[in-house]
């Protein structure tokens, strides 16, 4: 118990529990993981909320993210500066959204951000191509890639503007049976 108090104050833990889907223990575990990535930067004592960020290279090396083809994109989406450097808050936020408890709507919002590579608030053809190439490790022929992207847009694009905006995406993902089971990371 004494160990807990040195990392976070009770108020901090309560606040984190209010803002995330984690329990006290999980938050402490998250801190442990965060600390262990860069022990020389991250202090054990978080009671005075130090301003510490871990660079993207370290984050993407976590076993949970290492194999994920979208890891950079995920980390960038959740980093406050957009470059992929995560503060502990961002870190907690990331795993909270990706946790099992997070509702579909929240996940959909972030999934949209993740798949929107050029951050123009649309998933356009180039985003789709990137997604597909990452998913298949560029093993599809260019024609196949274009065909698939066209099919996706044809299926999901409701307003016919040739790219997916958030409502399109939400409509599509809202019906997907596997979205919830796959878009989550246990930590």
């Amino acid at each position, binding site marked *: 118990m004494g160990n807990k108090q040195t990392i976070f104050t009770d108020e901090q833990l*309560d*606040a*984190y529990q*209010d*803002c*995330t889907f984690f*329990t006290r*223990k*999980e938050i402490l575990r998250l801190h442990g993981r965060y600390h262990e990535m860069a022990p020389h930067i991250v202090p054990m004592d978080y009671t005075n909320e130090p301003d510490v960020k871990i660079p993207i290279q370290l984050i993407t090396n976590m*076993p*949970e993210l*290492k*194999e*994920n*083809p*979208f890891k950079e994109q995920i980390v960038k989406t*959740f980093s*406050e500066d957009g470059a992929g450097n995560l503060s502990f*808050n*961002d870190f*907690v*936020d990331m795993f909270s959204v*990706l946790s099992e408890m997070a*509702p579909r*709507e*929240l996940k959909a*919002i972030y*999934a949209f951000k993740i798949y929107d590579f050029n951050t123009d608030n649309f998933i356009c053809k180039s985003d*789709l191509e990137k*997604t597909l190439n990452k*998913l*298949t*490790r560029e*093993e*599809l022929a260019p024609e*196949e890639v274009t*065909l*698939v992207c066209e*099919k*996706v847009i044809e*299926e*999901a*694009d*409701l*307003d*016919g*503007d040739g790219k997916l905006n958030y409502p399109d995406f939400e409509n*599509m*993902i*809202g*019906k*997907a*049976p*596997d*979205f919830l*089971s*796959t878009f*989550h*990371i*246990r930590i």
Partner: protein
Amino acid sequence: MFLGPHMVIVSIEVDNDESDDEQSEDTDNDSSEVEPQNSKESVGRNGKRKRKIEQESEEKSDDSEEEEEQSRKKNVKNRNKLTNRNNSDESEKETTKSRKNKNVKSKKKDSHSDDHDDESLDKNKKGKGDKKQMDSESDKEDNKKRGKRKDKNCKKDGNKGKGNKKKFSSSSGEESEEVITEEDVAKLKDEVDEKKKLIATLRNKPSPMKHKLQLLKEAQEFVEKFEGTLGKGKGKRFYAYKVMMTKKWMKFQRDFENFKTACIPWEMKIKEIESHFGSSVASYFIFLRWMYGINMVLFGLTFGLVMIPEALMGKPYGSMPRKTVPISEQDSAMNFATLWDFGGYAQYSVLFYGYYNNQRTIGWLKFRLPLGYFLVGVGTIGYSFMVVIRTMASNANEEGGGDDTSFNFSWKMFTSWDYLIGNAETADNKFASITTSFKESILEEQENRKEGNIHLTQFLRVLANVLVLLTLAGSGYLIFFVVRRSQKFAQEGLDDYGWWERNEVNMVMSLLGMFCPMLFDIISPLENYHPRIALQWQLGRIFALFLGNLYTFIIALLDEINLKLEEEKIVKYNITIWEKNLYNGSWLENSTSRPALDIDPAIVPRGPCWETMVGQEFVRLTVSDTLTTVITILIGDFLRAVFVRFVNYCWCWDLEYGFPSYAEFDISGNVLGLIFNQGMIWMGAFYAPCLPAINVLRLLASMYLQCWAVMCTNVPHERVFKASRSNNFYMAMLLIILFLSTLPAVYTIVSIPPSFDCGPFSGKDRMFDVIQETLDNDFPAWFGKVFTAATNPGLILSFILLLALAIYYLQATSESYKAANLELKKKLQNQSDENKKRNKKNAKAAANQMEELQNSLQNANERATGRDADKKANAVNSSNHPPAQGAYPPNGRRMRLAVPPHVAVTRPPRPRGPGQLPGRLHYPGPQQSHGAHPRMPRTGAAFR
């Protein structure tokens, strides 16, 4: 009580300047004194608004930040307004110096000529008190100055008499406040509620954590400050108490939640497996854990309510025949082989049905053991049904979407990656499988499958099914044969035979359960299904196999029960003779002490007790099943892995990627094994109370063993697939098995008379007579009457009829809902299709128009370059409009509609017009010759 009412005002006005006059100080205090009293009323009145605001707040959740600020400002304004109003009252009072208490309100309504009053009223109407005018101060000052105020009041009214003045000020304040502050307090309450809501839903907001934390802090502070002030008079205390209790309750809930998640076992193990093998393998372990939970409850029921009471309070071992090992078995009763078979001392213990006595109550607690035994049996099954069905329902809710196939590619694109994967090999497999699935879909999209292929696959699938059916029939016959043989052995007496003959049925069943799935596994590649479908086929086949085996086993058991029942009759007859002989013999010795006859219970002859036999069979089956699982894992997975790993160094082909390779985790077989095992538990638990305990141990062992085995000996599936929906698939199978295993258990309980000399129901006609007995003895007479009246056939029949009607009605409505749903879906589909079409047309038309414009622009440019430099600019300018407009008429309405925005679109490139020229020149070849004819490309495009 958390906060004094004074604090309220103070805290709000922190933002404001401190420029203020003396009057404000007075009024602030007045308002603060009165305000809380009005709150309750206002709450009631503004209930509706509150709800509305809540809705709004939900909608607004996205831009909560702004909202936050706004609300804050609003709040300040309200507060200021309030103080202002007071201020005006006070000033009015001062200027007019009237002391008619009652008239204050009416005066105000009449809108005095007084400047102050007018001003304040105006402000109130506008609802926007200016901060500058506002009289405000920080809390400390407020509190300090309160003392001053009193002094001043005294001074002012010193002439007229203190008492009078006091009365005046308070009453006037009250009167005016009643009108004014109600609304404010209501607003305050709304805001507090809003904030609370915000706190509760904060985690669902898609904003960065830093922001969320800040929001949370603000909201909490706000709530802290104002919560205490809401409430009135006596109610205030209660309110504060309530608030405190809610807080405590929330804290408790959170702690409990933390505790609960901490109690979920094997979380990390499963996570590890999940990251190595994807969610499908992990789904088995999650299922196993769930099963473990259920079995813990069943174990608690039987252990706590049946076994423990009997062991503690029942008659001890050796006190009566049913609790003693018979003399003929005593020599071997402690042998390991006997105990392993659950004979000997194990048989005559609380582990089995036969040991229990039919004494109505036991011990000083008057525990009604027979009744308890019966109710636990019923409760076990009832609880299982409830849990399975509830889980299924909640799973069905979670599944959300439908089997809409309209998003085939999109779903593949966005949901096919399993974010849980954290293992390089699995990731490789996953990448490969995603690529193949995309290729397959593309192929399907491009052309429907080739004819020859279809015939071949169809032939292969039929062949595979024939093979599977043959296997099933073979295994069924084998079991039938073995059971027959074992009956023969049983009739001839088991003592002449060895271990194999005695355990033949169990062993054959276990072996079949082990090898037939392997056979199916070999057959299934013939069919070439998608792995998810293949998994379901495989599950279905193994399900059929196990079910066949189980039911053959049960039928054999029923035969055996009938044999035992006949044997029982003979034994009963024999016993009467034996007793007669005994008594006759003893009478000869001393005729007076007949009741005091002291016979060793071990030598008393006894019936075969078919219930214990059934229980033993199930226990043996469970144990042998467990052993087979362990052995399969050790040989099939571990030894194979060791062999492949180490012999690979000196082998002629690559063992790791060649023929034997490493084993894959067999999801279907394991899940079905688990389900059928559970079925046996449900069937046998009534006759062997120890069965849930054994099962708990088994599940625990298999959890650890399989976790270890899967991590160190298995490789990920070649085509990693998700376990979508299979959870409910498992549940559905579990439900079927639960039902099927309840049937024989209920049949034996209801229709076969219990043995006469063993078990808690001995001496009764049927087992459920225990309920009637309890009703007669333990309940008042009228209750029994009511019960018998309620159970008469007429009532029950009508009840069943009612149920049937209800089911029919519900089914009909659900059908109609489904139809309506389908209709709506269709409509939506049509709508979206139409939208798409229209948009596409628009886009196309716009594109045409744009092309046309560009062409015309080009032409104009050409012309311009061809002519003077002066005219060039003109041409460029004009080309944007005249030619385009000239193009409208022949094109119809749509074109005209589509053009205007695209004129704007073409504008930006205009300055670059001349520069584009050279490149443009080769491209649209024919237009050059046609010069300024804009129609050509458009008509061409129209046919495209």
